[in-house]
């Protein structure tokens, strides 16, 4: 696990550092961060038991609807994490969602 984690992180920095990349490739790479974060996040919010669930019992989705504006307004990772986890914890203690 350590090896297959390390190699993808190491090889590009080792071989591409200092190289001038073609502008179009640089523009593409600049879009990788939002793309990869959204790809990891969105299914975990929308999909429950192999189908899209936007109903009230999908607590993760509803907590995200509040966590997104929090992240937008305060630009704070910490506040977003605490608000997100807090909402899920409170929601569950009220018997809402899974």
């Amino acid at each position, binding site marked *: 696990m350590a090896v297959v984690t390390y190699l993808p992180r190491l090889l590009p920095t080792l071989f591409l550092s200092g190289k001038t990349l073609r502008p179009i490739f640089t523009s593409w790479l600049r879009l990788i961060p939002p793309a990869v974060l959204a790809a990891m996040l969105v299914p975990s919010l929308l999909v429950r038991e192999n189908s899209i669930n936007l109903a009230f019992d999908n607590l993760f989705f509803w907590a995200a609807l509040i966590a997104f504006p929090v992240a937008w307004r305060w630009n704070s990772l*910490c506040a977003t994490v605490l608000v997100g986890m807090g909402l899920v914890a409170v929601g569950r203690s009220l018997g809402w969602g899974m």
Partner: protein
Amino acid sequence: MILPDLLEVDKNRQLSPSSVHYWAGFKRALPIVLGYVPIGFAYGVLAGKSGLSGVNTLLMSLLVFAGSAQFIAVGLFAAGTGPAAVILTTFVVNLRHMLMAASLAPYLAGWKKRYLAFFSFELTDETFALHSSAAGKLNGCRLEALSLNVTAQASWVLGTGLGIIASGLIGDIKPLGLDYALAAMFIGLLVGQCKSLVQLITAILSGGIATLLYLAGWHQFHIIVATVAGATLGLGVELWIKR
């Protein structure tokens, strides 16, 4: 052991005291620390609950240091999956770091290979997001960047350790919302990465494609495929707007 050595080297080379850079990196890492301690804690608790030994759980945080891959590995371990499948899944889930490392590489021109090797080891979604938001100064602030990374991993290991200790005491992580820590962190990072319209469009496209692929039964490859497709479509939109 590695860090004092770097401090020494830097002292001889730069005029400003190295402790300034060290603290600057430490301070920049604090938002990650506040996210990593609870997420590491959740990982430690989950790993303990799945029957992974405390030593192995901690070693994974020290040697692998890949949050989502560690969560997935623990899930597979709990389900009784064999080592080969765990390793292959880790590889696929971590392929995205290749794209991240490539996007930072042009800014690391002046770095020696050993520093690149150390920097890359601690390149995660979160440290990457911070580095890429200030990529222009990476070349001049090696010590600050490495200090940021070391602080982040130290907090991850600390959180893991606390989680291992707590896993015997906590019956269920759900009432604490710990299973939402990773998603909430991704939300914060994603918002920080969507500074232009094209980046926002890319995120929506990539998220949509990932969801469709996931529904189609691609439970590991959906991340890398959606990332490449989303970024490529986003680039198309960017070129079309500029036309």
